């Protein structure tokens, strides 16, 4: 690996870490092997190896991040454009003037600014030949740009915190070492995914990530439900992988036999690939996104995946793996952008899938009693936000939401784990929790902060990212998005209200009211609370990385100062491999309205639980809901409630119809056909050559009729008996077979020769 070929001359000028980014996934990969081999014999039973490896990877990722910022700045220096020094975090960084509205409002005459925005920053690429086939050189390598670097940092940071948290949380587990081994492998796979240079590598890492998820969901495989959940996750992902495989294949041939992501994107941008092909490819890839990122209708595995240990849920099923789908769309954005004709339109498949998931997932969160499942549906719903954002052309908003969501959702999951750790390892909010506010203050406050971020309360992280998405839909007046997606705007707002309401419900049920459980809860130790606090800090601060113009003295659109849109500036690719997205103009009014809607959601839920509180005081019972609520009074509401409790009956469809159908009748029919159709006719032919055509008929007739009556079972023994007829042991019958066969063959030969 040291003899890496330099694929790109510009790479030479980039930082060392950017050129050698392969080291970052390599370290956890080695740690996986080390833990498996010697983990059990080391003092920490392997967790020290994992923590050390992930810390190293985090440090290197951070270095890569700094070098990337340097790289972007260098590119702008080189372009000789107007520079403006500004001070960030003690260091002096150069940034150029940019105009987020340039694309949207070219009429304003900002031609100079518009040009400057297109100062291309070449991604740092580095690859070696993996194999050659049919003259095609398939490479393995790294593609590092803002998106990859951002993902590297997020994944390693959260993975590190989860590692630390886990040393306490799964302490004394029966497979402690294996747990850490798979955490390492997962981290390595995810890091490979984000720096993958070509779609084939992406596919490989994609599936590896799925396997780690399988192993970690099924961590406690002694219990059948856990292994069932693991199986479900893997199989659902496989269904999506089918789409990925086909999509990758289509793009491979469309791009002239190349897996190269940059090349595919460039060709999609330049129109060298037919739009129809792009459309088919993006539809296939959306299936992959749906399975991996839990979009409707392939989302059902994600709530079940909560069967795994909680830190795993935080790492894999909230912060990192599930965003792989979003990442993939962001990576191959040109394909989707042109394939689905995102610009200028008002609806497309990707946005629709995202919006439906956003609402559908949020509604399901209301009927869950398991705190982790609420969070799982919340994840689904938030992933819907991201996918929707990508669908409406708000690339930066989507990626920014991915970034902020990773922190507060990890915080929420770890918080839920912390609560459950204290409460007998139960996750049932109604039966085992309540009133934990005073007992577990640190957990409570971090949880509340993260919830605030999720709901989008000013000025927490989620507020900024969600607001950008809503603006990016272009549906609000004067936001000038890539397209004008009114439906998505409405769905997004509705989603905000729902999110606020169900999260308030969680907070109330968990931390307020009276304690309903049977154990003695207590606050957890530092290895659990410190990661929570760190994540909470990020949940507060992450949003400031991409302040819209004009907020907090960030200058106006043409003279950015401070933190204004730093995230977008460094993360969003500029170059031929990225489409011309239009940056929407943020709107104060929109921000106020969406916040109001969110707060209304909180207020509604708060009002409801105030009532519950009063009632339970009055009746002296520990109530968790109103016994005579709307679902008991109104028939449609009740029906809707039943629909939600049954998760839209999708699980029934999958398990009882599709899976049971294939595994049951269809497979059995195929096998029956095998034994009765093919095998029996084979036997019949053998027998027929002994006894003659007439006998064949009666035999087959009998067999079929007989078989239809019996329908199943006792087949192979019967077949054995049938064949035994040939094998009578009588010499003359063998001789007959021999002579007959020879004659027929000789005849065929003769015909072949003479004709």
């Amino acid at each position, binding site marked *: 690996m040291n003899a890496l070929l330099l694929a790109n001359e510009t790479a030479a000028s980039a930082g060392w870490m950017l050129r050698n980014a392969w080291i970052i996934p390599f370290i956890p990969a080695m740690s996986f092997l080390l833990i498996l081999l010697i983990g059990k014999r080391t003092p920490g039973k392997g967790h020290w190896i994992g923590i050390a490896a992930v810390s190293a990877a985090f440090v290197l990722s951070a270095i890569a991040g700094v070098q990337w910022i340097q790289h972007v700045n260098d590119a702008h220096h080189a372009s000789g454009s107007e520079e403006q020094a500004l001070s960030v975090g003690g260091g002096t960084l150069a940034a150029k003037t940019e105009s987020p509205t340039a694309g949207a409002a070219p009429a304003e005459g900002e031609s100079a600014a518009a040009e400057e925005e297109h100062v291309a920053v070449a991604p740092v690429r580095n690859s070696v030949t993996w194999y050659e086939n049919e003259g095609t050189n398939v490479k393995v390598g790294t593609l590092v740009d803002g998106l990859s670097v951002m993902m590297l940092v997020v994944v390693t940071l959260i993975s590190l915190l989860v590692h630390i948290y886990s040393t306490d949380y799964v302490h004394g587990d029966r497979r402690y070492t294996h747990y850490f081994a798979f955490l390492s492998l997962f981290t390595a796979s995810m890091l490979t995914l984000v720096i993958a240079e070509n779609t084939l590598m992406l596919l490989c890492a994609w599936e590896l990530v799925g396997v780690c998820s399988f192993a970690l969901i099924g961590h406690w495989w002694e219990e059948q439900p856990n292994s069932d959940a693991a199986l479900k996750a893997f199989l659902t992902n496989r269904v999506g992988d089918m789409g990925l495989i086909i999509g990758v294949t289509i793009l491979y041939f469309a791009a002239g036999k190349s897996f190269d992501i940059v090349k595919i994107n460039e060709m999609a941008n330049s129109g060298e690939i037919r739009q129809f092909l792009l459309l088919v490819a993006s539809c296939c890839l959306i299936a992959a996104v749906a399975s991996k990122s839990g979009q409707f209708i392939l989302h059902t595995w994600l709530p079940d995946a909560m069967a795994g240990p909680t830190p795993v849920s935080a790492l894999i099923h909230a912060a990192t793996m599930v965003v792989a789908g979003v990442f993939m769309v962001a990576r191959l954005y040109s394909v989707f952008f042109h394939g689905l004709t995102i610009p200028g339109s008002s609806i497309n498949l990707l946005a629709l899938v995202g919006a439906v998931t956003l609402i559908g997932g949020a509604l399901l969160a209301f009927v869950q009693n398991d705190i982790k499942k609420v969070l799982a549906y919340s994840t689904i719903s938030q992933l819907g936000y991201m996918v929707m954002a990508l669908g409406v052309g708000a690339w930066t908003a989507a990626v920014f939401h991915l970034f902020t969501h990773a922190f507060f959702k990890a915080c929420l999951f770890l918080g839920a784990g912390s609560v459950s750790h204290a409460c007998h390892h139960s996750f049932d909010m109604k039966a085992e929790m309540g009133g934990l506010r005073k007992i577990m203050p640190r957990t409570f406050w971090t949880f509340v902060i993260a919830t605030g971020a999720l709901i989008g309360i000013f000025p927490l992280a989620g507020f900024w990212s969600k607001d950008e998405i809503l603006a990016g839909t272009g549906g609000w007046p004067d936001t000038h998005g890539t397209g004008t997606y009114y439906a998505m705007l409405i769905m997004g707002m509705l989603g905000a209200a729902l999110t606020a309401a169900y999260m308030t419900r969680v907070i109330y049920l968990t931390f307020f009211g009276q304690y309903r459980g049977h154990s003695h809860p207590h606050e957890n130790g530092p290895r659990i609370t410190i990661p929570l606090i760190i994540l909470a800090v990020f949940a507060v601060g992450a949003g400031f990385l991409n302040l819209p113009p004009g907020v907090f003295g960030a200058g106006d659109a043409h003279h950015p100062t401070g933190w204004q849109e730093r995230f977008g500036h460094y993360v969003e690719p500029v170059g031929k491999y990225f489409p011309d997205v239009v940056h929407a103009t943020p709107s104060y009014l929109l921000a106020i309205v969406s916040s109001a809607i969110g707060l209304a959601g909180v207020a509604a839920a708060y009002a409801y639980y105030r009532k519950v509180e009063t009632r339970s005081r009055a009746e002296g019972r520990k109530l968790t809901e109103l016994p005579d609520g709307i679902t008991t009074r109104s028939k449609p509401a009740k029906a809707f409630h039943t629909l939600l409790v049954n998760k839209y009956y999708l699980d029934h469809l999958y398990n009882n119809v599709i899976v049971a159908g294939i595994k049951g009748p269809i497979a059995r029919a195929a096998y029956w056909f095998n034994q009765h159709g093919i095998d029996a006719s084979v036997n019949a032919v053998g027998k027929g050559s002994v006894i003659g055509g007439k006998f064949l008929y009666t035999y087959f007739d009998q067999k079929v009729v007989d078989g239809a009556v019996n329908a199943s079972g006792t087949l192979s023994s019967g077949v054995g008996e049938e064949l*035994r007829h040939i*094998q*009578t*042991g*009588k*010499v*003359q019958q*063998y*001789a*007959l077979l021999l*002579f007959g066969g020879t004659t027929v063959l000789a005849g065929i030969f003769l015909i072949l020769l003479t004709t």
Partner: protein
Amino acid sequence: MLLNQFLLLAAALFCIGVYGVLARRNAVLVLMSVELILNAVNINFVAFGAFNRTVAGEVFGLFVIAVAAAEVGVGLAMVLLLYRNRKSIDLTEVDLMKG
């Protein structure tokens, strides 16, 4: 003379022999049918020998006769053994090879 007529005769004889081998139940009769087959082969050998003007055909015919003699000897010995053990030489009752 045509070569054909000998070959056809041999073919007819051969097929009659095959029929005998396949259809008869008496082991001695089966052995006789085998003799028919061998003789058919011999006719072919000699006819082709004559056609090619070489003695090779005849020599091989002699070898076949020798082998046939050996075969009848061993075959009849086996029939005797069979008879002694089973008091019958009906081949349809011989199914020791049955699985």
